[in-house]
């Protein structure tokens, strides 16, 4: 199968740069699957998980919001954060999750509340990515 080049870039690092066969990306308009020779596209992304398929393997990443640009045979994702499944730590995520839940239960307001909600959302996504990764590696 043909491949194309995918770059995932965050403000602090270049999280992924390889030739891939397929990637599915959560955009504002729903999940978009990108195969080689996709039509040019510029789209804004939401928080969520990315599924990448290269020649050798399949992998998942948890990302924050950002943008995607498809030009010719190169895809660039600019996202606020990106973590590979093997970089995620289950206990850390659970801790963050409970902290966020507590903050929401305490009925905080304003910026603190929206922070808590985004933390909760993020930890759910990370958890999902981690579960998939684990399921794959046990089998």
């Amino acid at each position: 199968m043909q491949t194309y080049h995918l770059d995932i870039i965050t403000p602090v690092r270049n999280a992924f740069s390889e030739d891939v066969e397929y990637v599915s990306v959560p955009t504002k308009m729903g999940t978009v699957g990108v195969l080689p020779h996709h039509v040019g596209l510029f789209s804004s992304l939401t928080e969520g998980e990315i599924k990448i398929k290269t020649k050798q393997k399949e992998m998942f990443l948890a990302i924050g919001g950002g943008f995607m640009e498809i030009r010719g045979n190169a895809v660039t994702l600019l996202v606020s954060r990106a973590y590979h499944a093997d970089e995620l730590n289950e206990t850390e995520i659970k801790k963050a999750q409970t902290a966020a839940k507590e903050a929401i239960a305490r009925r905080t307001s304003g910026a603190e509340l929206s922070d808590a909600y985004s933390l909760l959302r993020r930890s759910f996504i990370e958890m999902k990515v981690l579960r998939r990764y684990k399921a794959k590696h046990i089998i």
Partner: protein
Amino acid sequence: MANIRLIKGRIKSAKNISQITKAMELVAASKMRKAQAQALSGKLYASKIYEMVLRLSSKVELVTHPLLTKPRDLTGKRLVILLSTNKGLCGGLNTNLFRYLISQYEGLTRNEYVVFGKKGVHFLVQSKALVVADFSLSVPFSEGIQALTELVTKEYLLHKYDGVDLVYNEFISALRQNPKKKTILPLTISGAVPPEEDMKETLVEPSYQEVFDELLPHYLENQIRDAVLQSEASEHSARMVAMRNATDNADSLAGELTLVYNKARQEKITYEITDMVTARLAVEV
């Protein structure tokens, strides 16, 4: 003798100072390396997002965005974001920056200011300028960037200011920092537009307007982040150089004082010997 003891004390304090400044130099050096690495790691993202904004805006000349255009009725007032430091002991870094600030604007009090760094706040309060927000306590400064971006875009869209400028120390090398002014609002997207063949077929989702609404603040934030990281790297390198100079000075002072001390000690010994000799001669006769 009192004189000798005095000199001894001064040698000791000069040596102590040199030790302290040496330690501060090392701390500043390690912080500078970190700040530099951080500034570099953001480069790729910054250049990519710049390219995206450029391409997208070159494609649609028709779309106007309030962040891209000047407000219609001018107030004559600008918002200036001043990036100074919280701590001193960094040579002429802040002084140069403030002198530059004065040279750039006629009448500091005409504009309003958002400040990072206590030194900048002190300076502006002394010159009776209006400081609307002080982000000095968000350490490291990059913590405050998001809040600042929101504040700036909001105020700008309310047409309170004609424009927003960043004034900061540009990091050129460990030995050189230059004060710099950069206008960030209204956004100017300059630079050669890369030749595009297939742009016409590109789809934009959900719509140009929505993508622009998100992309532009993001771009703005990135520019501010770049300036903040550069000014942090500047601070640490300026401090490193200042502390190295202080160490050298203290060492040379200690050296000079040691010479003086040795001379005085030698003199004292000579006096004692001549004393003894004359006393003996007096007894013999």
